[in-house]
């Protein structure tokens, strides 16, 4: 009995092996399949629809490439997990802050050859392209979008508080005064700041400090010096302390993260807050904001030579473990989906039409990836399709190009932000927080992170 069973097993295994080989041999077609990052999970069906339409268009133009959309959202822990496991989509997005380190660690594909073959590669804004270049000079990621921090404000609450919605505050003193007015007349918090422990608190504090002329680091790489306990940081924290405890214009919740604060704003519960200039897309896609309440202004800058606006952005990269054919296909997708709409009128118009048809925002203010001329040109192409309240964003668009754009702290960015999270939270939740002491400690923690290259 046993021997018969054994024999059957061997034969079955043999048959399976033969079939598998046959299948493998039979599938030597020229089609290349790549997976690409699509939308953040939980996006509206309409948004998903428009993405799929763009995929279909690409596949029509490139019949030998099949594109598989994969929902994707960059969050620290899940990105690290996928990176370590190798389960990132072929084409994925990373923030400016991480690209260089990832490239140096060999975790992004080297795109230099393919990128240099693109006709517009020399037209990129040098600073933006540099964010995607590793320390050996290899291009490891191409720019997707750049943003500057901006002040988002609720026009309806402004009006209710007796303020002019077309004249948002231009100095920090005015921000304070307007916040107080909103709180007193409408009961809603006039100014809210991100204060969650996931590095967003430190990110916004750094933004504030930049507008006052301070810097969080000096130098680059592991030899950089942490300077988070500078004069301007103390001023910024004192400003927050005043608004929180004296004016009481910051509401009762101090653990907002990036998505929570968007949600609260869209629900009409916040007067003003700071975030990237491009969050309107998220406000529409995730929170269905009523467009009439939205106002966008540039951040107030102090009268300091070093005052500027924190800029950031997203890059798009390719997995390092791909074949040459996949890398070529990935570059074609990046070119089609991310870059072409900014350079080719036909593509820009097609893109805009698809977005509009699916009720997605077109015309959200972004920063130039190329030069200003190209930027204006691209905007003129999509002008007829703009469906965001662009007039309400005029204060931002008028002022932003005169403001110096400052990149985020270069060394161990996320760790530096993390060191500052606790300080911001302490100021907002403890009336007697020891600002100087906590900043000193945050500085030593930040310095440790910088020196160890994490």
């Amino acid at each position, binding site marked *: 009995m046993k021997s018969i069973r054994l024999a059957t097993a061997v034969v079955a295994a043999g048959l399976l092996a033969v079939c598998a080989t046959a299948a493998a041999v039979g599938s030597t077609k020229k089609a290349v399949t790549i997976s690409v990052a699509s939308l953040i999970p939980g996006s509206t069906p309409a948004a998903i629809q428009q993405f799929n339409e763009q995929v279909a268009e690409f596949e029509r133009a490139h019949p030998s490439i099949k594109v598989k959309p994969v929902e994707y959202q960059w969050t*620290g822990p899940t990105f690290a997990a996928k990176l370590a496991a190798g389960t990132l989509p072929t084409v994925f997005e990373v923030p400016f802050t991480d690209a260089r380190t*990832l490239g140096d*660690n060999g975790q992004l594909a080297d795109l230099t050859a393919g990128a240099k073959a693109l006709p517009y590669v020399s037209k990129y804004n040098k600073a933006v392209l540099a964010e995607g270049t590793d320390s050996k000079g290899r291009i490891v990621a191409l720019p997707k979008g750049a943003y500057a921090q901006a002040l988002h404000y609720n026009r309806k609450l402004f009006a209710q508080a007796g303020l002019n919605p077309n004249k948002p505050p231009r100095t920090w003193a005015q921000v304070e005064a307007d916040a107080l007015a909103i709180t007193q007349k409408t009961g809603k918090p006039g100014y809210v700041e991100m204060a969650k422990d996931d590095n967003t608190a430190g990110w916004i504090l750094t933004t504030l400090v930049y507008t006052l002329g301070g810097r969080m680091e000096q130098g680059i790489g592991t030899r950089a010096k942490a300077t988070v306990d500078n004069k301007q940081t103390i001023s910024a924290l004192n400003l927050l302390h005043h608004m929180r405890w004296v004016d009481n214009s910051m509401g*009762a919740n101090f653990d907002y993260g990036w998505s929570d604060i968007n949600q609260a704003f869209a629900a009409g519960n916040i007067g003003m807050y700071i975030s990237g200039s491009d969050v309107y897309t998220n406000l529409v896609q995730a929170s269905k904001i009523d467009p009439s309440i939205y106002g966008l202004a540039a951040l107030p800058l102090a009268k300091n030579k070093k005052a500027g606006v924190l800029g950031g952005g997203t890059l798009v990269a390719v997995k390092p473990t791909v074949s040459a054919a996949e890398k070529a296909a990935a570059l074609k997708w990046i070119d089609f989906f991310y870059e072409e709409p900014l350079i080719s009128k036909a593509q820009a118009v097609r893109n805009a039409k698809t977005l509009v048809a699916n009720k997605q925002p077109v015309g959200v203010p972004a920063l130039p990836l190329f030069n200003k001329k190209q930027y204006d040109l691209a905007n003129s192409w999509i002008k007829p399709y703009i469906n965001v309240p662009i007039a309400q964003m005029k204060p931002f668009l008028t002022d932003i190009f005169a403001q110096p754009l400052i990149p985020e702290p270069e060394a161990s960015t996320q760790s530096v932000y993390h060191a500052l999270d606790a300080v911001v939270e*302490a100021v907002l*939740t*403890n009336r007697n*927080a020891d600002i100087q002491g906590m900043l000193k*400690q945050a500085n030593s923690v930040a310095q440790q992170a910088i020196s160890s290259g994490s």
Partner: protein
Amino acid sequence: MDAISDIEVKGAALPAPRHRVRRTPLSWARGGGLSALVFMAPMLIVFGAFSWYPIVRTVVMSLQHTNLVQAPTWVGLDNFSAVIHDPQTPIAVKNTAYFALLALVFGYPIPLAAAVLMSEVRRARGWFSALAYLPVVIPPVVAVLLWKVFYDGSSVGVFNTILGWVHLGPYPWLQSQQWAMPSLVLESTWANAGGTVIIYLAALTGVNAELYEAASVDGAGLWQKVWRVTLPQLRGVLLVTMILQIIGTAQVFLEPFLFTSGGPANATLTVMLQIYDYAFGNSLGGDYGRATALSLMLAGFLAVFSLVYLRATRSWSTE
């Protein structure tokens, strides 16, 4: 531990085969060795791969610097030193001890009192048990998120509204460094006390009724019966639940993670959260050496604590 000798006494093995044959592989297989191995296999494979191997790896990794790009390098006790010198570590230890202490104060005597009362209910005791246990079956994530809504700091938050009826508050709950940890303990107690109640109830049924009768005959009142009969009889269970609770709360993760992410200003940072931050908090890859070092330190502490505890209570639990 009594349990070990217990296991050895009961249940003898199946009788060995009569003939003492030479142990060749074939005779081993025929003598039941192969089938025993087949039955042991799932357990051995699963435990080997997912329990024993990782335990060994924790020790190894705590002495290495691991990033998943290059090969790991040996760094001796550097990880332990880094953890000890991290300014957040003493904060995490203090907070964890605070949580464990508060949880013990709230979550230990109250279920006992409730169980004693419940065990004397004449009718419909099932209702009591069901109501007490209901919060325990709610998925913990749902419980935390629900209480997070309750804890809204504005004057129209649920708890603040209720307290407002009696002219109290509004309180900041999770938005204050003083109130955050007690708020976490309150929810944790709500979600877990029911389990403890049921355990105590079950143990109370094991109390010998004759002891109560004897005490009554001796003229003991109700309080004295509880003090002299109930509690001593429950000693074993009480001691076990206490140590289990301490070990459990020392590893608390869900509440600080979902309620406050360790904030505000590290007021709810616990050791588990610190380990999570080391290993999974950095988008560029974690510091697994420090994470495993801290895990070992926590496990070591719990081991020592348990031994001390068992030794100290040995004289109390045996009769």
